[in-house]
């Protein structure tokens, strides 16, 4: 025999389950809020304690401020000086090389030759000199090769000298690799 009920209502069991659901949801919410408060509270405490530590350390370090500034300036000066030293070293190295080339070019000459012009960059670019004979030009190249260590030095031009003192004008330059 089923009971006649004109309305559809929630049963007491549904009421109870609703109550349980509310309690669980409320408990979980409360627990989450509490744990958040605990975690964030600890973090805020840490932040404030660190801030106070920084303040005390700053106060302690106040007498050393001029020394710190001087140290900074000195460090900057050291960097600038190091840069300048490097530049000087580079320049002196270049000059040394050029000097050694010039010395080799001059040493390779004998009394019968005369240097007209020398073009130098990092290495020998071109040498123009007056020679009495063609053979003396060849021997000059051989000597220059030995002195400088540059291989493949070639005679690029050979012309008879217009002045009567020397026989020929010789241009020597190294063979450029393409």
């Amino acid at each position: 025999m089923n009971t006649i009920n004109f309305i559809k209502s929630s049963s007491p069991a549904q009421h109870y389950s609703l109550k349980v659901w509310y309690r669980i949801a409320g408990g979980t919410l409360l627990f989450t809020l509490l744990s958040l408060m605990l975690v964030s509270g600890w973090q805020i405490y840490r932040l404030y304690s660190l801030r106070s530590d920084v303040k005390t350390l700053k106060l302690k370090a106040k007498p050393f401020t001029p020394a710190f500034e001087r140290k900074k300036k000195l460090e900057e000066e050291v960097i600038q000086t190091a840069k300048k030293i490097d530049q000087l070293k580079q320049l002196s190295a270049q000059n040394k090389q050029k000097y050694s080339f010039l010395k080799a070019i001059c040493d390779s000459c004998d009394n019968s030759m005369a240097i007209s012009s020398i073009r130098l960059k990092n290495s020998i670019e071109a040498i123009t000199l007056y020679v009495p004979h063609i053979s003396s030009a060849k021997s000059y190249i051989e000597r220059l090769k030995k002195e400088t260590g540059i291989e493949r030095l070639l005679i690029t031009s050979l012309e008879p000298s217009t002045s009567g003192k020397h026989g020929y004008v010789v241009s020597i330059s190294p063979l450029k690799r393409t």
Partner: protein
Amino acid sequence: MWPMPPFNKRCIIIHFSPHHITCSWFEQDNNKATLKAYKSVPLEHLELERLVIFNPSHISTIIQSFLDEHRLQNTCALFCLSGPSLKEQVVTCETATFCPKKMANTTDFKLPEWEGIIWDHSYLYPSHDGKYVFYIAGITRELLFQYQLLAMQNHLNLTAISPETMGLLNLYKIHKGAQFRHSQLGIELSRHNNDITKMFNEKTLHDVANFGASKVITENHKPALLASLGLFLTRNTRA
């Protein structure tokens, strides 16, 4: 959704009839229901004529005074109705399952008359000629809505709106317990000229409920209280 709507475990039963409104509060103690309080107020100025609520403020005052007196706010409420606006009929059917379309030609039950109203049926007993007797009850939507609004106005968690007869039938079933038989119900109903209230005597009442020595129940209030008790016990057995 939040906060949780207030719920009170306690349950009150309000019996509405054109001439009386009866509020009762039962509590379940072990296997017996105990009548904690009841109040019956006569309605003499057509407040509830034909079960239509014509004076909701007066009816609310009666209900609220009962609730305030016993501190029963936000309780569950069961409404038990008895009156001419409630359509009730006992019909016979050739099948054990209630099928209105099949029986429309054979019995007094006319389906078009019941259209537009909310109705439900309950199986009663098998008849001598091999047919099955059903109890049908219906109510108009407007009337049902009136009672729902009344419950809302008084902050009651309305659980059921049932006819008085249904409450009495439930009480009979609960009283019989495992010994309940539909055929026996049929025999007893015919023995008492289909007056269900007469099926209960003092002994049967005290078997299922404690009415308390101090509470004097008059004969006029007895059917209302019996139906209320039936509804209360049905709710508790289902829960």
